[in-house]
């Protein structure tokens, strides 16, 4: 049911050079709309004050073996756990085949600082904070949907798909780290 | 046509299937007895004398560590609450100092329009002493509750049970056991409480018999015993008022509204039937 618009008429035969101006008009208009829309949407992205909070320094000298502290980095909690020898051994004894998201314990800590486990304290399922020293694997247990992590913070059971995330961090000295 | 009974049957069946699950829903905590509060149920009202006593317990015992940032002194004279007189509230407020950067020295005596000034201790000190900052009491009675086992919680929707908070607080205050029962491991600096989740609570038993001396009852009033049981009831009632200070007025409005709705429903039923009788 063709209407009587001039555009419809000219579409029927082969496209001619005169059509170019219509195509160009639509294309340039679309660019204009996108150019206006993106800055508007982009205002919703994290602003400068949020981005400024990118790194945190933490003094870890006061964390006794077998205990953990929670610090805040970029608005999210981060666990710093001083692991016992038994926990490290337990983590390293796990065969890779048992892991849902295989990763060796060695790859989750820094060499020479194996006792320090630094992880973003948000369950990789839907972002709740897991509870330490609990669950079937002596690591962390997420109270929201029942995900269980081992002493290396690796996912072992439950709906979470990934291991707890290790943020970028560096040892400034033996007693201080910088996260971010 | 769908019959209402079918739906109800389906609902009951559904909940029934799931019921065994709950029986276990693991509240290892002691069973919490529901108390008969003067303010429970649709007809409930606060007992002014009890609220005044509860306020005294709050002020003399709790307020040292627990803030109540939403409480204003003026609230204490409101109808439906403790109903202190204007003079009493003014005098009470004057006993406290509040920060006010616009006056010389930065502090002044509180006025009835001011809010409760807090504990006078820093959060850090409180955290060092108890392991956590003791929670603010403004809405604590709404923030605590008692789980009702399945399927009985369905009844709560019909009885309007909303007193889980005071029931819990009352049970908590009476739930301390010293020494702890056999097998309970309580870390250093914690106390055994049969009601608290996990049983190890940071708050030392706050009440003891005779700890608060109530004023002589007004003429015609009844003297109450100075016991933990009595204190805990009074302070729970006070906290319930504090959490929802206009609940009595709201219930009274509710009766007027329900009465209106019932009348209106009756009339509309007549209107509808009269109209439709032409069609049948």
């Amino acid at each position, binding site marked *: 049911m063709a209407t009587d618009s001039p555009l419809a008429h000219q579409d029927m035969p082969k496209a001619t050079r005169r059509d170019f101006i219509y195509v160009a008009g639509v294309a340039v208009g679309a660019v204009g709309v996108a150019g206006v829309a993106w800055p508007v949407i982009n205002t*919703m*992205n*994290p602003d400068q004050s*949020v981005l400024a909070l990118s790194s945190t320094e933490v003094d870890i000298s006061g964390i006794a073996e077998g205990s953990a502290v929670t610090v*805040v980095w*970029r*608005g999210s*909690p981060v666990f710093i756990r001083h692991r016992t020898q038994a926990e490290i051994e337990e983590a390293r004894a796990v065969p890779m085949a048992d892991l849902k998201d295989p990763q060796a314990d060695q790859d989750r800590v820094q060499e020479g600082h194996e006792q320090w486990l630094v992880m973003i304290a948000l369950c990789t*399922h*839907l*972002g*709740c*904070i897991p509870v330490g020293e609990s669950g079937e694997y002596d690591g962390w247990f997420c*109270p*929201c*949907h*029942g995900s269980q992590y081992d002493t290396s913070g690796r996912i072992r059971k439950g*709906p979470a*798909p990934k291991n707890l995330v290790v943020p970028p961090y560096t040892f400034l000295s033996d007693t201080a780290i910088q996260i971010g | *046509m*769908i019959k209402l009974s079918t*739906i109800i049957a*389906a*609902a009951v069946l*559904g*909940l029934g299937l*799931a019921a*065994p*699950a*709950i029986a276990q*829903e693991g509240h290892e905590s002691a069973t919490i007895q529901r108390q008969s509060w003067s303010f429970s149920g649709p007809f409930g009202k606060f007992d002014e004398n009890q609220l005044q006593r509860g306020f005294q317990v709050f002020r003399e015992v709790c307020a040292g560590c627990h803030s109540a940032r*939403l409480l204003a002194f003026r*609230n204490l004279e409101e109808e439906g609450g403790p109903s202190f007189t204007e003079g009493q509230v003014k005098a009470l407020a004057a006993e406290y100092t509040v920060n006010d950067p616009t006056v010389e020295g930065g502090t002044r005596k509180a006025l009835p329009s001011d809010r409760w000034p807090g504990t006078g201790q820093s959060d850090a000190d409180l955290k060092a002493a108890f392991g956590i900052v003791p929670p603010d009491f*403004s809405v604590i009675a*709404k*923030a605590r509750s008692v789980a009702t086992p399945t399927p009985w919680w369905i009844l*709560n*929707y019909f009885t*309007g*049970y*909303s007193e*889980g908070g005071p029931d819990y607080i009352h049970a908590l205050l009476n739930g301390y056991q010293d020494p702890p029962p056999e097998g309970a491991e309580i870390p250093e600096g914690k106390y055994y409480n049969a009601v608290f989740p996990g049983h190890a609570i940071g708050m030392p038993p706050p009440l003891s018999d005779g700890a608060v001396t109530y004023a002589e009852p007004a003429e015609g009033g009844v003297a109450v015993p100075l016991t933990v049981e009595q204190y805990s009831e009074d302070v729970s009632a006070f906290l319930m008022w504090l*959490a929802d*200070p*206009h*609940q009595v007025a*709201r*219930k009274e409005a*509710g009766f007027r509204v*329900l009465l209106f*709705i*019932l009348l209106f*429903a009756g009339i*509309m*039923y007549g209107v*509808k039937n009269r*109209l*439709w009788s032409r*069609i*049948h």
Partner: protein
Amino acid sequence: MAGHESSYNPTNVVEKWLDDRLPIIRWSKVHLMDYPTPKNLNYWWTFGAILVIMLVSQIVTGIVLAMHFTPQVNLAFDSVQLIRRDVNGGSIIQPLHAVGASMFFFALYIHIFRGLYFGSYKAPREVLWILGVIIFLLSMATAFMGYVLPWGQMSYWAAAVITNIFAAIPIVGDPILQLLRGGFAVDNPTLNRFFTLHYLLPFIIAAVVALHIWALHVPGNNNPIGVEVKSERDTVAFHPYYTMKDFFAFVVFCIPFAWFAFFAPDILGHPDNFIQANPLVTPPHIVPEWYFLPFYAILRAIDFNFILDSKLLGVIAFGGSILILFFVPWLDTSKVRSGTFRPAFKWFYWLFVLNFLILMYFGAQTPDTPVGPWTVADVSKLNVVYYFAYFIVILPLLGRFERPRPLPSSISEAVLTEPIAVSGADPAMPTAR
């Protein structure tokens, strides 16, 4: 809209003048009053009108509350509590809005399940149904963002968990998550934008409701026997017959509404939401409001990897459980509309309702809660299977194998043989032949 005759005759000069320029009175008469409606609608059909009134009620109470609310993380919690303490009538308005959301969803579920039983989604009402699903989605988004505003513990963690769903999208998940939250975690920018959108969306819902009613008036109402209107004898005018019947139903609907709002305003909520949001403490047991529980149970039931990882699968199941409603008009192959005349369908339908209620119940339990020898996590997988099987397997196959009972030839015949059948109405206005 429908092209039936207008009985409107402007009686005075002003009306005539207006009618020539903007025939709004004529339009209202045609669509809001004379609209011919099947005369056998039952009370399940009154929930459409109830929903319209509830939407207006939510908008009105919401606007008043917005005048007293502060969308700032340090002040939001207190500002909601202070509404209940200091604002005139605030201790009633705030519960009316919070309980109103629950009542809205209660009515919405009945409205949806009524459509599913009586085949209201079938041709020629597919667009009507699709617009309804869009309203359902928008309502869920609005309710979710509204729940975040009091900034209690459940508010905060609901926002954290639900926005995190978007992180499951491969590759672009994280940028989208940051775009939604306005930061790396749920924080002040999140609260602020949720407030803005919570204020905006109800008006968009109202616009879609207008389209929904328009789409209703083109083919006209479905009815409990599912046989189309054949003659004027089958219909009555929307006003006063259904306006008054709907209004009666609404007044009755107000009884539980008032009961909860005045006598137990917080019983439908969660005590943890009276604790101010704390990003460093997760509540021991996060649960959404009751009306999201079935879908939450579906999200949670997928805790295993299968080609894709469990999180993405869970999110696909969660989204799919709602989006599948869009396809129901084409999944159901039966030629008979009303479930009343489909003996086998009835069984599967009520099993579906039961299954939905069980999912709702499971959504409130922790995954390791025992159910007989199994746990909620195990059994809810079966519930999820049935939920999807109903749409993907049962509806398409049933239409081929089921032998429906004979249909009455017209609404009038059904009414005469089945004396109970008359009643009910939808807010809309259909067309007559």
